[in-house]
């Protein structure tokens, strides 16, 4: 085992055990946002997985986006994404973030999140249940821990 390999392992171990999350609402109806807040509170308690909601994108590893992207919010979303240090991951929460949802065709809506920034995890639902959001976060962490294994599972399943 090379020295670089050991450093990488330690880095992954640290990353998986404490993902810091920044949340950005790009024009959502609040439904997903309150469910994201709910996963931080005692019943769902995302801190079990080391998840911490962070205010500044410069300190965060994971960007959680909700809502369709409005024309006003597009530049801000890009700026928030660019401020995050590498490696960064994006979770799109809710039907609107995935496809535009009910807001498809509204004049001020550009579309979904992955038209603007690359997305790693999609969590469907209007809004998704807190359990589903937790599941999405845990899947992302599982992928970080063992990318090859997870990809084989996805291809097989």
């Amino acid at each position, binding site marked *: 085992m090379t020295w670089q390999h050991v450093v990488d392992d330690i880095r992954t171990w640290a990353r998986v055990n404490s993902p810091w999350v*920044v*949340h*950005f*609402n*790009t*024009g*959502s*109806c*609040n*439904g*997903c*946002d*309150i*469910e*994201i*807040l*709910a996963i931080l*509170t*005692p*019943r769902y308690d995302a801190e079990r997985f080391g998840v911490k909601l*962070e*205010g*500044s*994108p410069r300190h965060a590893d994971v960007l959680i986006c909700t*809502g*369709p992207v*409005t*024309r*006003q*919010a597009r530049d*801000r979303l890009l700026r*928030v994404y660019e401020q995050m240090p590498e490696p960064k991951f994006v979770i799109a929460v809710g039907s609107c973030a995935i496809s535009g*949802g*009910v*807001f498809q*065709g*509204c*004049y*001020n*809506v550009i579309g979904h999140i992955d038209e603007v920034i690359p997305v790693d995890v999609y969590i469907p639902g*209007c*809004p998704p*249940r807190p359990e589903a959001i937790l599941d999405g976060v845990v899947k992302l962490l599982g992928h970080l821990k063992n990318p090859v294994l997870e990809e084989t599972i996805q291809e097989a399943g």
Partner: protein
Amino acid sequence: MDTTVPQRFVVPIGPQHPALKEPGHFEFTVDGEQVTGASVRLGYAHRGIEKATEGRNWVQNLYLLERICGICSHVHATAYCLGVEKLAGVTPPPRAQAIRVLVAELERIHSHLLWLGVAAHEAGFDTLFMYSWRDRETVMDILEALTGNRVNYSANLLGGVKFDLTSELTDKIYKGLELLEERTYQYVDVVTSDATLLQRTRGVGVTTREQAEQLGLVGPTARASGVERDIRVEAPYAAYPDFPVKVVTATAGDLEARFVVRLQELFEAYRLIRAVLEKLPPGELQARMPRKIKPAETVSRVEAPRGELFYFIKSNGTDQPERIKVRTPTLCNLASVCVLAVGSQLADVPMILAGVDPCFSCNDRMVTVYSGDTDHTQWTWKQLRQYGIDYYRR
């Protein structure tokens, strides 16, 4: 450097910021720690829903309008349904009206508990945030058992409601209310006696009765300043004529009063829900609605958890509306933030903002704000269109 000229320092906050979960951009001009000017830049969550309603039929719009706001989705649907029913001349059955009131009050409980948590979080009192959100799960469970969804329940239909109450559900609601009532007594005790929280709330952001009337505040924000304004009492809708509401007011007008008013409203909501469950009228759940509605226009007002929600609906004889205009309570209340923030400490500003229970997804309408140096000419449609094209070409 000339130090005699006062330095103008602007603190920009947002649109992505840790204080609130929604995008809004604020600029506070500060002199030391004192705020000397405040301005708000909104519109990050403006999606153009009012225009989108004109391209969808009456039933599709119900689901679109529910998603104006995820926190108070039921009142949006209720206001819309009441308006459309008035246009079509349909009277929903009394049982449906009572269930609408029941869900509206459950939603008020969930919204006020959510606000209590968020406001406590702004004050740095995260323990209260965790407690109130833990207890909020009780009412979320009730809503889920009743309607099948935790948020955006879509209990309303044009002409009635979708869901009926069973005896198991009734028991569940009674049990949940018992727990919540006990917890609410504790919260009232905490917000009126905890010394640290009181330092952040007592005497902060005082809105006098005159100011509240002048700024046109609505909902609990106005009631905390002694203005008795509640649509459920002034113009009772749905089943509220049968289940009268007692208006909760306070006179202090500071943040503490807003905490107390919202918590006391919870007791009122518990009482109302019990009254509805005891005297739930029997009968049908839905009246038949016509597909097309003859040309007419109407106004419908309901009391959302944050204050008066106003809908203007115009029909044109087809199965689509001609125009729907929504005015949400946050827009009325947000003006007070800019007024109250001036002269207060910068550290109090998040608390003052949270005090009105802002909801930007409700709020982001097309609003033109004229500052002093702007030319006050009216734009024609052509000019406005050209401006829009030029703006997005950049």
